């Protein structure tokens, strides 16, 4: 990196934010099924960002890619499980689901702030605030429509990282090495993989944004996962070719390309604009869980939730801590069938979070995986001891979200 490109970087990020706004307000028509399907892809790719961040620390190989694909099915499986189960309503359940949306939003804000600031030296704290405010405004006014539209544009823009990855792979890499690595890795942590899988499964049962997106868009899980698989495979396989079969980060070789981001005037701006749209899409997608439609009743939840998510991101206890804590909250509603069960699960989740934090196990560990399962089981057991008066269907309380224009506050 031989020059300063802060002005270019800031213009790129600003353009990325404006593109997100333009995506939402480009038309007043109801989003098509294609738009909602692509928006749903971004809601699933959110999990890929989390999982990839874990897998690359020890070295993401071809086997890791296959595991990643399996992992990405789990939130959708969890969502489908929840759809087929009578959902618990009431305040405790709403708090639990809101906690999941807040946690996922915080996780994406952390990922966005770390990535963009590392590439551009913008202040990540400012970035957290700006990204929260802009996406929060869009979701407040347009609900899931906004996340779907931004997600749709972001999905098209994924062509940029796909092309970069494949170009690096084919021009400077080796397809054979992608499958038979020449780089030695530390080996995948079984505990981390199991913990991720357990977390993703329970998060899927309580990810209100994913559920609302499915209910509104009626997208095919197979189609969404097929699209997600295509994106992930193309990006990761290109990187595997380039990196000799194992993507290890942080490492000097991983950052050789980002360190040349100033190679051509304008290149840094374009890449940062694309990344900003991608992160705006996943943040908006997670935030939409707090207010899937534009009903005024959810506005307080959205504003409060966004503020809490931004606060957590600013404190940044670590992506692993945030996602495990979120999974604990999700576990409280994963198997519970009564409000009592959810409440018991939430209390259990709080206790587990404290214990895991104090013992240093609030990360991708066996203990964290076990704690998530225990919380889910506690919710289920306490449900059996209570009444079923709070059971309702579908999973999210409030009016049934539709694409009708009446949900547009106009």
């Amino acid at each position, binding site marked *: *990196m*031989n020059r*300063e490109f*802060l*002005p270019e970087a800031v*213009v790129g*990020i600003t353009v990325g*934010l*404006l593109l*997100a*706004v333009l995506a939402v*307000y480009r038309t007043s028509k109801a989003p098509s099924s294609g738009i909602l399907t692509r928006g749903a892809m971004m809601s699933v790719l959110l999990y890929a960002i989390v999982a990839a961040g874990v897998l690359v620390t020890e070295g993401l190989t071809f086997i890791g890619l296959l595991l990643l694909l399996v992992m990405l099915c789990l939130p959708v499986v969890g969502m489908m499980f929840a759809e087929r189960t009578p959902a618990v309503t009431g305040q405790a359940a709403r708090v639990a689901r809101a906690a999941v949306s807040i946690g996922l939003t915080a996780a994406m804000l952390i990922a966005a702030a770390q990535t963009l*600031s*590392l590439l*551009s*030296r*913008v*202040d*990540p*704290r*400012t970035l957290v*605030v*700006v*990204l929260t*405010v*802009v996406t929060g*405004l*869009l979701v*407040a*006014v347009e609900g899931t429509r906004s996340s779907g539209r931004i997600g749709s544009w972001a999905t098209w823009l994924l062509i940029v990282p796909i092309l970069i990855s494949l170009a*690096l792979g084919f021009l*400077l*890499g*080796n397809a054979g*090495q992608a499958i038979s690595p*020449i*780089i*030695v890795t530390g080996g995948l942590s079984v505990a981390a993989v199991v913990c991720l899988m357990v977390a993703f499964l329970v998060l899927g049962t309580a990810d209100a944004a994913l559920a609302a997106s499915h209910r509104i868009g009626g997208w095919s899980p197979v189609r969404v996962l097929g699209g997600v698989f295509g994106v992930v495979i193309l990006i990761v396989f290109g990187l595997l070719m380039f*990196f*000799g079969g194992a993507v*290890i*980060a*942080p*490492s*000097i*070789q991983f*950052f*050789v390309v*980002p*360190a*040349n981001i100033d190679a051509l005037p304008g290149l840094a701006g374009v890449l940062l604009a694309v990344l900003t749209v991608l992160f705006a899409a996943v943040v908006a997608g997670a935030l939409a869980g707090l207010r899937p439609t*534009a009903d*005024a009743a959810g*506005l307080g939840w959205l504003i409060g939730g966004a503020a809490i998510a931004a606060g957590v*991101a*600013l*404190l940044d*206890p670590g992506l692993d801590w945030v996602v495990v804590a979120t999974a604990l909250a999700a576990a409280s509603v994963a198997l519970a069938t009564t409000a009592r069960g959810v409440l018991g699960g939430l209390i259990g989740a709080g206790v587990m979070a404290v214990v895991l934090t104090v013992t240093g196990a609030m990360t991708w560990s066996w203990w964290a995986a076990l704690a998530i399962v225990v919380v889910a089981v506690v919710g289920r057991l306490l449900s059996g001891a209570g009444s079923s008066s709070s059971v309702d269907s579908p999973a999210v309380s409030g009016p049934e979200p539709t694409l009708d224009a009446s949900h*547009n*506050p106009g």
Partner: protein
Amino acid sequence: MVALSRGGAAGVAAGAAVLGGLLLFATAAPTSLVDAPAYEIDESLAGEVTSGTTPALSPFYDVADWQPGPPGTLVRAEPIDGAPDGMRLFRILYQSTDLQGNAIPVTGLYAVPAGDPPPGGFPLVGFGHGTTGIGQACGMSQAPLDDDTPSRSNFVPHIEPLVEQGWAVVASDYSGMGAPGPASYLVGPLEGRGILDTMRAVQSPAPEIGSVAIDTSKMGVYGKSQGGEAVLSAMELAPTYAPDLDIAGGVSLAPGFTPALQGVLDAVASNPTSTSQNMFVLLIARSYAENYPQYTNLDEILSDVGKEKMAILDQYCGGDLADRVVDVPLSELLNTPVASGLVTALGEAMPGSTPLKMPAIIVQGLEDTTILPQFTHAQVMSRCALGDTVFYVRYPFDDHPSLNYQARLNQPSVIDWMEARWADEPAPDNCANQLLGTTNLAAGVGR
């Protein structure tokens, strides 16, 4: 807010995006680019930093009577006559370990201020020298006072001024460069062990050296080019290999890295011209073949022309060596594509994936054509992502030689930075990503 018209809401959101952009610009972290003119090297000094002569090997490096011992143990030492006023110089032989864990003898140069130590003793710095070759005559301890030698080329711009600061400086020759042993060029874990074991070795009283009081609470590492990479490796290794050393921080000037990227290495290996890179790739080939036989060997890495040059590596050093290997294009020295086993080994040896337990300052001149700034920047990005406490300084107009002086004599000065670590001042950090809460989790913060 929800009462806004659709157009109004779009305007508010767009306004927030633009305002956000302005805020991002206004609040950006300070640049690592220093506003400093290029450092002009004094012509009278320039003659002293050449390395066109390979010194003769003295009997000190004969280790026929050497017996294996615990790493960091001083085996023997001898004074070097004619040291500049205000300092004493010694050759030392000490115990270290190779990558297989076997004991090996390694030599080094120990330079201490001549006067009385300050209360508590002299601060101690482990120095990592830049590229001088891999031959037994190429180390720092051979002939630091003789003009035009490799050791002189590191002694004048680095070791001498550091001793003048009142620091004791111990410079490992690295394995194989003095006492016989595996070649160590850019083999981070081997160079790192050499540096850490020198710092242990000189803490033991020795009759040849006398009693030199060392303040064990004031230790650091300092290196340039190959040595910049070596000290970062030493810092990564220190918590596990030498937990007894309380290293307060490290200075890495224009560190030399070879990223384990097949495509990049193939591009380098296809260079149809003859440059100083010829010497570097031959040194890497030999060193990696010797240290990572499980991955690669010279037959895989080098062409027949390249293998013919191997004998020269044992006989010559510095500029004397570089001049003897530039008679053929680089592309004729290496097999292409580059041996995958070499890429595997580089992936293991290069620092950048293990968090540091102490802060570092990394300095780079942007006019440097020997060490490409992009690789240094990649290392810094990796360090920032790891949560390390890293202070990155870029000089816009300096090249590889002038950085030696610029980094010491300009602000922010690496000397001041090191002294501040010993004074237990909070270490500066210009990793923008660490402005979030994880800054408090960064391993080196506070020291």
